[in-house]
């Protein structure tokens, strides 16, 4: 009898494998959480898009929940995302932009054309902040709580649906 049970082992192992594969089907292999969740927003020292003489550091993000959005004029989906960001700003969410791998001129033109939901946009022409954030394609958004800790990471563009279903609840969740 025990030998008959031994013969069942392959079947059991296979059944477990199928369960895992089935669960894997529902997952997107490309979707990943940021490695920076629950960690301090990385240190930076960047000028603003508007003013090449004004430099800011991460104390900018202390005291208030902030949505940091990484964008660039060269990024087509960023354009589609702007209406949602403007809506979020209207709803009282504090937004800070990171103009990523861009020229000052293009970045300003972009905001003129599509609207400016940001309290301030940091200018990151070399992509150093973007790199420290682990950004691998714009747009990406990071929700930072009042302590300056990253709490939520959104890859790809924020759809109108996401505004209500994801972003606003996350913002409320981390209000002090």
């Amino acid at each position, binding site marked *: 009898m025990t030998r*008959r049970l031994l013969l069942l082992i*392959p079947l059991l192992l296979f059944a477990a494998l*199928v369960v895992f*594969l089935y669960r*894997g089907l529902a*997952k997107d*292999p490309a979707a990943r959480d940021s490695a920076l969740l629950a960690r301090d927003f990385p240190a930076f020292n960047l000028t603003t898009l508007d003013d090449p003489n004004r430099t800011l550091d991460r104390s900018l993000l202390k005291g208030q929940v902030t949505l940091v959005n990484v964008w660039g004029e060269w990024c087509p989906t960023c354009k589609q995302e702007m209406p949602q960001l403007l809506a979020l700003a209207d709803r009282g969410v504090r937004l800070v932009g990171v103009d990523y791998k861009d020229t000052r001129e293009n970045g300003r033109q972009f905001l003129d054309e599509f609207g400016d939901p940001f309290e301030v946009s940091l200018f990151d022409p070399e992509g150093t902040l973007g790199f420290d954030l682990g950004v691998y394609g714009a747009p990406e958004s990071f929700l930072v709580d009042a302590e300056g800790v990253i709490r939520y990471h959104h890859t790809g563009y924020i759809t109108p649906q996401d505004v209500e279903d994801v972003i606003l609840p996350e913002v409320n969740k981390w209000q002090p």
Partner: protein
Amino acid sequence: MLIRTLPELGHFALILALAMAVLQAIVPLWGAATRRPLWMAFAQPMAWGQFLFLVFAYLSLTASFALDDFSVAYVANNSNSLLPWYYKLSAVWGSHEGSVLLWVLILSGWSFAVSLFSQRLPRDMLARVLGVMGWISSGFLLFILLTSNPFERLLPDVPTDGADLNPLLQDFGLIVHPPMLYMGYVGFSVVFAFAMAALLGGRLDAAWTRWARPWTNVAWAFLTMGIALGSWWAYYELGWGGWWFWDPVENASLLPWLAGTALIHSLAVTEKRGTFKNWTVLLAIFTFSLSLLGTFLVRSGVLSSVHAFANDPSRGTFILALLGVTVGLSLAIFALRAPRVQSLAGFGWLSRDSLLLINNIVLVVMTVTVLLGTIYPLLLDALGLGKISVGPPYFNALFVPLTALLCLFMGLGPLARWKRMPGRELARRLGGAAIVAMVVAAVLPLLYGGSFSLGVTLGLLLALWLALSLARDIVDKTRRGRLGGLKKLTLAYWGMVLGHLGLAVTIVGVAMVSHYNIERNVRLAPGQHVEVGGYQFAMTDFRERSGPNYTADTATIEVTRPGRASFTMQPEKRFYVASGMPMTDVALRPGLFSDLYVALGEKLDNGDWSLRIQLKPFVRWLWLGALMMAAGGILAVIDRRYRRVPRRSAAVRTHESIPPGAGARGDIS
């Protein structure tokens, strides 16, 4: 007019093929269970009919490609009126739907071949084998018809032209690689069907292994070729000179190959010695299961890979269900019907039995390692433990020692006798080979590369050990005259020798190209030159040209080496008009001992071009070895031992007193 309806006729043929597959799946098995000869005899006509209809369906899809019928969605997505005719014909399997059709066509082709060549099998056995294959065929035909119909029309908005075949696939590799690979993948369904038939019939003796061995060898040889062709294709097509990336899709083809290699050996033991019966059945199930698993991994999108098909979740679910039912059922039948009695034959530490057992264990550990590495990220993700990557460093770290272990015992195997082999005799016969292998492996890298390299030495040591021990065996066998010289050595024996030597050749290739590869990224403008690895590369010309469906920037590089005639190489950067995709077209100068490999990169700021120049020593040996392995597998099948049952009359053979099952002869293959 009739030609316009070809896609519908093809679709209809698929449905008819499904009907026949279902009949083939049910009637013969039922007949075998209730011992009704007429019902059992149903299997063959159904297999033939199914094959016929699938050939028709396949040809009608091919015709749609040839005739540029862009009202067929699959043609519109994967072809273009400018596409050269030979790519139009192979674009049939260039994407998901058509490649599944090819899969099923090949499956029914194997069924057809089994029904043709196994006329002398016991009737119930043949009925069961074909019945099991009918089940698999039904599953995949359902899969095509429900989720992946290649005949779907784009009506009434027929596009004026097609979106073109993916430029990566517009290559000779597409013409040969997928059919070979599928022949191998699907070919393992035959040994699977034999194993299931033996289980179902309750006749788990050595007989089924004897019938299944030729089929397994042929499938294995095809798979070997398929993998080698894929590796060769990736090498010249992808532009960075890699030949194996441990990508999930590649691993998906390696898994059944490793299991199949174990199976070939285990079948030999079971046939010759009547031992490991359950294990062999289990391996037969595993090998085909891994083929199915590979199909699932490639087509479901659960893993990210550079060569994955475009995916659709419903397809993934369907194949998983297919996999679950096929493998689950077969393992359940195994658990219920496998004999409980353990085989009594025993063997000593040093014997061909124990060495083959070790071979099987190492190959299975290799299989599990590849499987584990491939799906581990998926397992962790499913458990919510985060995303990790498992890549080449992991596989290399485990495969090098495992291959070394495998080769160590592989050198002993062919010389050892069944049951027991005195260690002293083995040492006497192989001591010389071991010493020569060690000395040469230590010295050769110094002479070739000028410095000692552990990796190269290990690779050469293993390869020489395999080759020299085989040479010693051949010398012993012929010199002693016990078997009466070379002529008496069977083809099966030569097949084994060739297969094992093939592995040695591949190992030399891997070791040399991994350690002595020279790679230099350089910038060049017309009129400039650069020196790499003793060759001088001078860009003499740079121009634009246009091909049938692309435009290209072409550099002409003149390569010179002191004392040798110069030659030119023309790396290109192509831009495919219809798909808008850029592609690098590598310039290759192949050689038995070294390839020159030049890829054109980007245009740099100052108008120079970046180029990647590589010298790839012994890279051809990788595929040469695979070719030898495949040839070895085929050679063993040609051995008339296997054809005796169907073709030879018994009278010719009566002088042979000991039946093959007794294993008195020294060969195993």
